[in-house]
């Protein structure tokens, strides 16, 4: 019986091994960004104007671009951006770049589409503090918008179309051409040896378990503090720290957040939903401690950070 048992054990282990070996040979868990999609130019242009239009906020003070600054990596450099009333928002502003490739929007993943995201932000009493009737009326009162919407949409200006225009514009906000993408596309010489080692460490330590896919993250939810209580250690708990629990009310979702994309990570400090990590080093440290439960060597950490810096892409032909 013990012999048979140990044989079975061995068999099980052996059965597992090819799977492990296989995983490292197929394709790879990361893929380059797709090309910027060709979308209806009039809708994109309307979306661009709306994105920069403060009339979306209740007191005409904030536009989307106030926080999602396209010249600052699609976010701002504040831990917590101010809302229309000047009070800091509960969570850090994520980058708008490549947001269309995220499976969900917001840190707590409460929106599944960009349209939904726009809808919620405008209504949010902390963010834009407006309501759609007002916004649609303001837009419809503008003859330029009216003409533009009449050209781009059959129904002209309405809530759905305003949201769609915003989302359509955001779908064009991709940042292809990062050095790492070019490496994935076959230009293996473009990365230095250290950066390649960094990628290897990134995989070995298991960062890639969550930060994978085309957006190097963004496609799953994860508990913040898998192998350690981040919030206890950080102190000052806020309601936003509950993460997805605030959406589902499910105990299992306590402290669960969307895994953010690591694209352009080097230019989108500070990090985490609370904006608590001001530097990449700090962020990587927190990740190792609370998510991976491992202690990397300084060298490995430096390599990983070097790798992360290769993820910075380009927008309108210029690096972010």
């Amino acid at each position, binding site marked *: 019986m013990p012999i048979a048992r140990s044989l079975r054990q061995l068999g099980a282990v052996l059965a597992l091994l090819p799977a492990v070996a296989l*995983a490292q040979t197929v394709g790879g868990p990361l893929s380059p960004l797709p090309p910027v999609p060709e979308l209806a130019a009039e809708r994109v242009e309307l979306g661009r104007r709306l994105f920069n239009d403060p009339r979306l906020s209740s007191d005409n003070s904030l536009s989307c671009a106030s926080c999602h600054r396209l010249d600052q990596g699609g976010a701002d450099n504040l831990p917590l951006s101010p809302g229309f009333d000047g009070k800091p928002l509960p969570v850090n502003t994520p980058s708008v770049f490549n947001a269309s490739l995220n499976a969900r929007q917001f840190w707590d993943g409460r929106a599944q589409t960009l349209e939904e995201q726009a809808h919620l932000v405008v209504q949010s009493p902390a963010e834009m503090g407006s309501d759609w009737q007002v916004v649609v009326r303001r837009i419809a009162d503008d003859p330029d918008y009216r003409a533009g919407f009449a050209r781009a949409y059959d129904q002209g200006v309405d809530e759905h179309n305003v949201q769609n225009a915003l989302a359509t514009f955001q779908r064009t906000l991709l940042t292809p051409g990062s050095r790492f993408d070019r490496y994935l596309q076959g230009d293996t010489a473009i990365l230095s040896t250290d950066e390649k080692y960094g990628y290897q460490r990134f995989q070995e330590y*298991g960062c890639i378990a969550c930060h*994978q*896919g085309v957006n190097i993250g963004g496609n*799953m939810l*994860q508990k913040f503090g898998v192998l350690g209580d981040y919030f206890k250690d950080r102190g000052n708990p806020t309601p936003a720290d509950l993460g997805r629990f605030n959406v589902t009310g499910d105990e299992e979702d306590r402290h669960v957040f969307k895994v953010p994309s690591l694209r352009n990570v080097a230019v989108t400090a500070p990090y985490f939903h609370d904006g608590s990590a001001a530097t990449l080093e700090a962020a990587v440290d927190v990740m190792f401690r609370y998510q991976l439960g491992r202690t990397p060597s300084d060298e490995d950490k430096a390599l990983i950070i070097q790798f992360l810096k290769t993820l910075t892409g380009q927008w309108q032909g210029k690096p972010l």
Partner: protein
Amino acid sequence: MMLTRRRSFLLLATSAALLASVLVYLYLMSKADESDTYAQARDLIRQIKQNDSQWENEILKARTTINYNYDPLVSPLVEMKQLWRAFDNIEAHHRHAATPAWRAAYADYQQALEDKSRWVERFKSHNAILRNSLAFLPTAADGIQVQLGQLDATDTLRLHSIATDTYDLMLSSLEFAQMTTDDKAADILVGLNKLAVNKERLPAEFHGPIDILSNHIALILREQPRVNQLLEQIEAVAVAERLDTITQMLDRDERAALLIDQRYHFYLLVFSTLLMLLLLYMAVCLLRSFSEINRVNRALMGANDELEQRVERRTLALTQASTALQREIDERTLLESQLVQSEKLASLGQLAAGVAHEVNNPIGFVSSNLGALDDYFSRLQDMLKAYRQAEIAIDPATLSASLATLRTEIELDYILDDIPLLIRESKDGISRVGQIVKDLKDFSRVDSNQDWQWANLQQGIESTLNIVASELKYKADLVKAYAPLPEVECLPSQINQVIMNLVVNAAQAMGPQRGTITLRSGCEGEQVWIEVADNGCGIPADSLQKIFDPFYTTKPVGQGTGLGLSLSYGIIKRHRGEIHVLSEVGVGTTFRIELPVHQTRAA
């Protein structure tokens, strides 16, 4: 009337609309060939199912693969939602979403998908860290083994036992990943405890790696059952079955729809046939009513024509009556004028007759006195002759001389010669006066004015000519070519008047030159005729028809009444005779009167 027509129109319109809508309804119901949309819907469901199984494939892949790309676990859901939206759009046309069965099927599927995506989402989170720890486990264990190997072997047996424990724990954990049983879990817990104990026995530098290892093993111990549970939950979510149910319902609905289609096809056929029959019937009715209308129309037209004819007839009769009336009026007027004229003539005649009568007496005694005077004077001549012879014998001579002187002075011889002549002439004059009076009486016939009598027309003509002689004298010569005429039954004074008219007209027709008037007469059997011909100016053809019309005249005002010929015409007609005229301008005119000898007057 109006109301009933409107009501029947409304009724007609309503029934037409009703029939049309039934037809359209049946057509739409039978036309709804939805096999296309059913096929599309089924295809979409099949694609959703495909995505679902692909999803499950990816889940299986994800549970055995480290460094897995979770994008394929996101995309099927996105795809399925899109496909479902397309399906929903198609199904919106089928309208059966309202039935409870369909609502339930929809809700079941949505719930299943929601459950599944929730479990998959959780699976991703748990699986990612589980795989990561499992992958890390050999490395972590190896790290400890290597570290153990580097220790100075003071207690090799114990170290060996610690190494074996660690290795066993790792193996158990890996095995646990394959066969998650409570036994294994208990084993791992025991192993973890052992590791914790062993940790205490090892130097401090071992504490970190052992903590990390035991943390990860604890994670595996925690996460593996969770992952397994999630997989079971995912497996338990019957998305595919829900989709199969929907497919079956689609099939059933399609069959039902097909049946309904066929039924409506049949209904449509029957209805169309009925409608066709109705149309045929209506066509027949229409034709019938058309022919009826035509018949009535024809009758109406006939009646109309008849009416028109009657109107025409009436109008004609009226015209005729009016003409007759006019004629009567004209005749009356004429008659009146004639009456006036004849009255005038009659009173003139009476006057003339009266004068003639009064003149007759003095004529008588003047005539007889003249006879006596003639006789006395011849006797006086004889006496005077005797005195003359005796004169020579008278003595004294002076006396005889004075007697001779006186005789010479008074031109006795001439007187004696002239007196008989004077007496003769006076006698002649008196006889002429007598003749005139007689003619006047003859012409006027005052005594027997309006009585039909047998009269000698020639005598009448002569009398008339005598009366108008003064008018003829300077204008024309009279030529008389009489044939003897029998006595004619007539109104002589009126015939005389006609003759006088014609003769006076003839005289007036003469130009400045003296002309000839020819009077002829004759007798032909029971008819006598009289012609008055002149060689005057003649009558133009266009006037010729009108000369007998009353008041027609070409003479200057005052010279003629325009009644002469019309009066004559009337008189001749009264005698049932004829009066004709022949005329040529510049040559002359001839009037011819024809009269019957006998008047067969009816009462």
